[in-house]
């Protein structure tokens, strides 16, 4: 994949920005009886409290969610009730995973118009038939009328990987069991993917606080500095793509500086085990890297928050000193169509504060 455009060279970010707080819900399956606002509110408060911010106090707020997931137009307007948007706040919303909301907030802080940002995401996939809902993302003329569900598309990708010799069903089963549970890989859902290869789809919400430079240092003992963040998209049609590779992930990682130095941790947004195989190859992750220590998207997939959680989990590991340099990845669209990569770092002892970069 070619970098986009002659003027596409990445230019130096003028400000240090860090993830200073992270909170997520821990639902298993449906968030019984809760509205999205009710599901989100405690998560927002937990993240704001960590950062020492009151509701509505962040300079910028940005969220990610999907009307199609909720089954209602303008669904994001209701969750604004949990933010404390009074007096009015500088606020925006992406119709995508919250990882892209974080990207927009990062850009806002770079412009100097904000020092702090609250980023949140929420999804209640239990509200609808997720596998069918996601078919509405596909080419509306040639593909969506066939209703190819999300597991089936992932299975086509998995078979391509097996055919190419990059994995096999046994290797996938090992990945499926890694979450600590010894459950057998289960029946085929769509062959070659078994139940254990598919994500544990759940309702959920996540929130992150971003802050610039000294503000970040005030809010957090060990901020997770965003050393680079980039995202790239591919054509959607599966028949146009090499499903065994993820050139957009590799390009985003290059742009984010992921290959400049080894990472010790990687949080990958790979709902299906087979997608972890693709991402590990694209990101050149070897066995020295702790991949998905949180359990990853496979262990809990609150759709639309899952990618933001990868960024939050990687940052939280830096906050508590368990990582010095971590990669976080988020994805969108069928078979890893659109990918975001961020590189986060903690300051190590001996680094003076003024020389964070």
């Amino acid at each position, binding site marked *: 994949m070619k970098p986009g455009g002659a003027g596409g060279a990445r230019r130096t970010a003028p400000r240090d920005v860090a993830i200073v707080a992270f909170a997520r819900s821990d639902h298993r399956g449906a968030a019984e009886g809760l509205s999205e606002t009710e599901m989100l509110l405690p998560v927002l408060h937990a993240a704001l409290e960590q950062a020492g911010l009151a509701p509505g106090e962040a300079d910028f707020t940005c969220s990610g969610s999907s009307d199609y997931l909720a089954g209602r137009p303008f669904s994001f*307007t209701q969750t604004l009730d949990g933010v404390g948007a009074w007096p009015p706040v500088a606020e925006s919303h992406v119709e995508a995973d919250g990882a892209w909301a974080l990207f927009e907030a990062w850009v806002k802080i770079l412009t*100097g118009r904000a020092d702090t940002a609250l980023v949140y995401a929420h999804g209640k996939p239990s509200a609808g038939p997720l596998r069918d809902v996601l078919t509405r993302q596909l080419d509306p003329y040639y593909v969506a009328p066939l209703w190819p569900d999300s597991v089936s598309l992932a299975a086509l990708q998995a078979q391509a990987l097996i055919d190419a010799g990059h994995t096999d069903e046994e290797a996938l089963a090992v990945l499926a069991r890694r979450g600590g549970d010894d459950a057998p890989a289960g029946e085929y859902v769509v062959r070659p993917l078994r139940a254990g290869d598919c994500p544990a789809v759940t309702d959920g919400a996540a929130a992150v606080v971003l802050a610039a430079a000294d503000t970040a240092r005030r809010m957090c003992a060990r901020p997770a500095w965003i050393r680079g963040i980039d995202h790239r998209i591919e054509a959607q049609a599966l028949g146009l793509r090499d499903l065994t590779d993820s050139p957009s992930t590799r390009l985003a990682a290059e742009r984010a500086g992921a290959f400049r130095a080894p990472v010790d941790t990687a949080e990958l947004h790979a709902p299906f085990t087979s997608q972890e195989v693709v991402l590990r190859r694209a990101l050149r992750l070897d066995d020295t890297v702790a991949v998905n220590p949180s359990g990853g998207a496979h262990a809990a997939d609150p759709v639309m928050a899952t990618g933001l959680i990868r960024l939050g989990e990687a940052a939280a590991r830096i906050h508590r000193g368990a990582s010095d340099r971590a990669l976080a990845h988020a994805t969108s669209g069928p078979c890893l169509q659109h990918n975001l990569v961020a590189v986060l770092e903690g300051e190590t002892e001996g680094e003076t504060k003024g020389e964070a970069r």
Partner: protein
Amino acid sequence: MSKEPVAVVGIGQTKHAAARRDVSLAGLVREAAVRALEDAGLSWADTDAVVVGKAPDFFEGVMMPELYLADALGAVGKPVLRVHTAGSVGGSTALVAADLVAARVHRTVLAVAFEKQSESNAMWGLSLPVPFQQPLLAGAGGFFAPHVRAYMRRSGAPAAVGSLVAYKDRRNALKNPWAHLHEHGLTLERVQSSPMLWDPVRYSETCPSSDGACAMVLTDRTGAARAPHPPAWVHGGAMRSEPTLFAGKDFVSPRAGRDCAAEVYRQAGVTDPRREIDAAELYVPFSWYEPMWLENLGFAAEGEGWKLTASGATELDGELPVNPSGGVLSTNPIGASGLIRFAEAALQVRGRAGEHQVDGARKALGHAYGGGAQFFSMWVVGHEPPTT
């Protein structure tokens, strides 16, 4: 730390219509994008990122359509960001794109916004029934008409003011080749005798439902220096949101709108908008919102906006032309309507608005709002680079 100045060097629109049955979704968006690139003298390869805005995905029945549109938008191998902030989304799209340039993340960004309402039905898309809730008894206009009555009560505005706005905007649209409604031979009497749908709002005072797209190329100083036509420079841009319904909500003059305007003027160094802004493209889906926004945006004192409208000041040749393009009252592809406002403001200061050009426009305001009058996005553009 200094931001990169941001220039608008390319603008394109589709011919807006009730139904564009000659194009696909991609074809509609491309029509605007290709015109914007041509205006900027650029090719697809010259754009570094794409920002896509539109209103709810249910309108076209495609979830996150930017995914399917990636190759049509020349975005393969590039970043695509999808914004959705209800009716203000077109404005937010331009602002997110401008921030990408200002932050020096990208040099040249394509912003596109669209709606192809004919794929479904606007009323269906806007009012899917929600279980347990009382159904909206009055349709879209019924949501807004009570606020208009509240404004009339507060300001003492005479009932005819709404028709003056509709008459002005529809006549302006005759000078805009892209506009959806071209009502030749329209008279004020016809506007005033059109059916009263949601008293006090008449049919002629409401916006149409359109298919359409708008695109814009934003770039940095280097890009602006290469542009074949004069750029518009972004002097200020801001978004403000408040909750949908709450104790203390002022639907007539929402605080989020006032605060947003104050912030944009502060950034742009505008202290007297009435005197310093030469043209304004305001999101006016029902004609009465012109005087309401004139007050909300600081062009008139509270209760005085209707007098500005009634005086003719907002006519194309008036002291403060409002919606020289014909506005939302003449063209309303919902998700694109905000970007069209921002683009038309930029066209004015570039001197490229054609027949609806305001003579000597040097600073212009683009404005969009959405949801329950709760999401606002605005920018001020100028014909010269910002000094700060």
